[in-house]
């Protein structure tokens, strides 16, 4: 993703968010890294982008990391709503969660997540995984939401 892109992290755990942010910055991904604390905030943020008046439109690239366990609106439902929207559906969504069951994994891929990753239990492994994801994302092209 382009250097100026925005990384959105839908994550209820603040400590996990801080760790992710630090690792992604170290990997050189995104100029802005924003936390969305629950599913409702995530949907509000994304759907506001799509409904801005034309005069305020700046084309921007996004990547979304999302936990499945989000309060207010669950991650699977958020994913479904994003992928139903013509514009927002082009945003790569990486599901990053402690949930490791076959049904949820298959469901998320069916709805169109780009990748499903289970969070490693140890903090140092978690940070290392995020750095690897960041290094990969830095060579991926994304498309702008206009």
């Amino acid at each position: 993703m382009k250097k100026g892109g925005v990384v959105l992290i839908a994550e209820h755990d603040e400590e996990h968010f801080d760790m992710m942010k630090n690792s992604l910055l170290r990997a050189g991904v995104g100029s802005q890294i924003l936390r969305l604390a629950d599913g409702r905030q995530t949907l509000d943020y994304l759907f506001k982008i799509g409904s801005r008046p034309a005069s305020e439109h700046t084309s921007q690239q996004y990547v979304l990391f999302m936990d499945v366990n989000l309060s207010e609106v669950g991650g699977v439902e958020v994913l479904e709503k994003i992928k139903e929207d013509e514009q927002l559906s082009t945003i790569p969504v990486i599901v990053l969660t402690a949930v490791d069951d076959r049904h949820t994994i298959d469901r998320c891929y069916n709805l169109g997540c780009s990748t499903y990753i289970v969070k490693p239990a140890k903090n140092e492994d978690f940070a290392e995984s995020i750095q690897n994801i960041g290094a990969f994302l830095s060579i991926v092209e994304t498309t702008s939401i206009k």
Partner: protein
Amino acid sequence: MDKQMVILIAEDDAGHFQLIKKNLWLACVNNDIIQFKDGQQILDFLSRTGDGMHLDETKRYIVLLDVRMPKVDGLDVLRRIKDDKELRQIPVIMLTTTSESSMIEQCYKLGCSYYMVKPVDYHHFMEAVQNLGKFLSLEGMRLPSISSNAN
């Protein structure tokens, strides 16, 4: 890493295929890799037609797809995978020399997971594929089952 993961690579350029394979291996990806030399070959594999090897339901797949290929191009392969009820959950990563933004947008609209442009520089190409390899071999990586009734 998902041990059942099989990497399907549709790439007509033999040199590029060897380079991709070698650098995935250097990034510790030791899963099975199957090469397809054109779009028709990979479609035959996925839709279980033709004489060659066919999709195995006990495995999990990820597809690396070039855009410019003989017979059926990558865009068409992507469209056919994402239109198919059984195959659509398979993650497809575009790996191509084509860098036009309209093509990138079209592929994301069709449902590709990621779009990577092959760097022209040899060393950058190696580095990019190794980054992809490290990503694919993440401990927590999970891939979808084939023919799941997830809905």
